[in-house]
């Protein structure tokens, strides 16, 4: 017998949340580890061999669709982007659903709150409809291009403690929509004044800059530095800067419409 045949294949122990919004528990499974395997492969192995009714949402398996968001060892992660060789295999791999949203079944959560918030944002409102004659230089486009990388996996929403721990969903739209609002507010052709919406409805100042959203973003968008802090500074210009406020009172600076 060859040595490889006699060597036992490495095993990983998965502790997976099974249940719904009311009741659930962690089930333990053993999965053989293959080279290049990701956590989603392990869950597929469990579906194929142990429980075909394990609910897990996935689609592209290339970290581009944002479907397979869950928490691996307590960290919001894309299941298809979390490599097994990056995890300590001498202890169980815990896989649970996103904590910030209601569980539907097993690892699938109801993220529809995000789509409802998104509908409240007034879409791009250009100066004119003649989009064929627009000229836009790369310098002006690149900020929005970074924000357009967002795949709406909602990992940033899940890790944001304002939504996750303090349940301020009525006050704060979360990092994903700060990114969308930044891409609109910074657009040179957008005419909509969004600052009061950003401050009062979207609640930008509920963010306290802990930067967890940036840490989990699979597209490496610098959410805090490039979207949230610039929006906060714009809100400060309009609402909190005492000198700019005085200049507006004296009529030396135009107030935004």
């Amino acid at each position, binding site marked *: 017998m060859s040595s490889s045949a006699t060597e036992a294949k490495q095993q990983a122990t998965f502790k997976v*949340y099974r*249940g*719904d*919004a*009311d*009741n*659930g*528990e*962690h089930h333990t499974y053993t999965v053989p580890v293959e080279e290049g395997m990701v956590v989603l492969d392990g869950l597929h192995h469990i579906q194929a061999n142990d429980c075909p009714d394990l609910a897990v949402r996935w689609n592209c398996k290339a970290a581009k669709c944002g479907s397979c968001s869950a*928490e691996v*060892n*307590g*960290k*919001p992660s894309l299941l298809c982007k979390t490599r097994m060789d990056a995890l*300590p295999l001498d*202890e169980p791999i*815990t896989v*649970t*659903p996103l*904590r910030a949203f209601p*569980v539907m079944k097993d690892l699938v959560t109801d993220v529809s709150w995000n789509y409802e918030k998104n509908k409240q944002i007034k879409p791009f409102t250009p100066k004119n409809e003649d989009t064929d004659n627009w000229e836009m*230089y790369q*310098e*002006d486009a690149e900020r929005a291009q970074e924000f357009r990388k967002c795949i709406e996996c909602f990992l940033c929403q899940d*890790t944001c*403690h*304002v939504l*996750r*721990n*303090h349940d*301020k969903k009525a006050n*704060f739209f979360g990092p994903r929509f700060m990114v969308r609002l930044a891409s609109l*507010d*910074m*657009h*040179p052709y*957008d005419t909509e004044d969004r600052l009061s919406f950003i401050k009062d409805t979207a*609640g930008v*100042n*509920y*963010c*306290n*800059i*802990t*930067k*967890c959203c940036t*840490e*989990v973003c699979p597209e490496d968008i610098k959410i805090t*530095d490039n979207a949230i*802090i*610039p929006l*906060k*500074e*714009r809100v*400060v*210009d309009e609402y*909190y*800067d*005492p000198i700019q406020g005085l200049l507006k009172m004296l009529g030396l600076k135009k107030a935004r419409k």
Partner: protein
Amino acid sequence: MAVNAAELLRTDELGKTERNDIWWTEPLLVVSTLVIFSMYVFWAVTQNANFEVGPYLSPFYSPDLRHTFPALFAQFPWLSPAYLVLWIPLAFRGTCYYARRAYYRSFFLTPPACSVGPSQTASELYEGETKFPFVLLHLHRYFFILAAILAIFHWKHFMDAFFFEQGMGVGVGTVVVGIDALFLTLYVFSCHSWRHLLAGKLNCFTCGAFEKMRHTGWKNQSLLNEKHAQYFWLSLATVWFADVYIRMVASGQWRDVIYIFGQGFTTL
């Protein structure tokens, strides 16, 4: 056995997490460092002694008010000049966007680390930066301007640190003061509010020559801004060491080696 899902997946308990890494090291290090630093600063400024020697001035006592307003300090000899200036760097650091990340996590535990349960009290009271006193953090841009002026004074102290009683030269203290000025400058000018004032507030970077110039500055400053956290800690370390060094030399514990141009090595 299936249990209540809300209980199993709850997130609102301090330290509750399924993370299996040592997430608590960062808040512990931040708290330890900032508490020890604050205690040292309090001690150093209340000493009101050993803060200058030869051409060197402790950065905690910059700008040099004692020699600018000698009558004031002769009348109130107990008054440490550091009391009058130290609020500027403290306010700049206290309102800094990176520092907020550090102290909200480490001191307020909101949250102590990503995906780790926060303090329940803080959770119940949490209003972000919408209410007093946290709303005052929005004044960061003004403390940036004051800190930028302070950085200019630090460079002046660096220039002064070449002029010894024996003549012009370079001492170890000159290098220490220079490194402090360098990292303070990098920390101050990598500021997020400065990034906004430079050009971040613009929607069009190419709509005029002035806007293009501002965009070039913004783009270069953005490279510095990416390292703002590192500069926060490096400048904290270098300003701390500069005070320790000058205090040790001033109290006679350490000898400062200097090279006087055209004369050779000597000590201070």
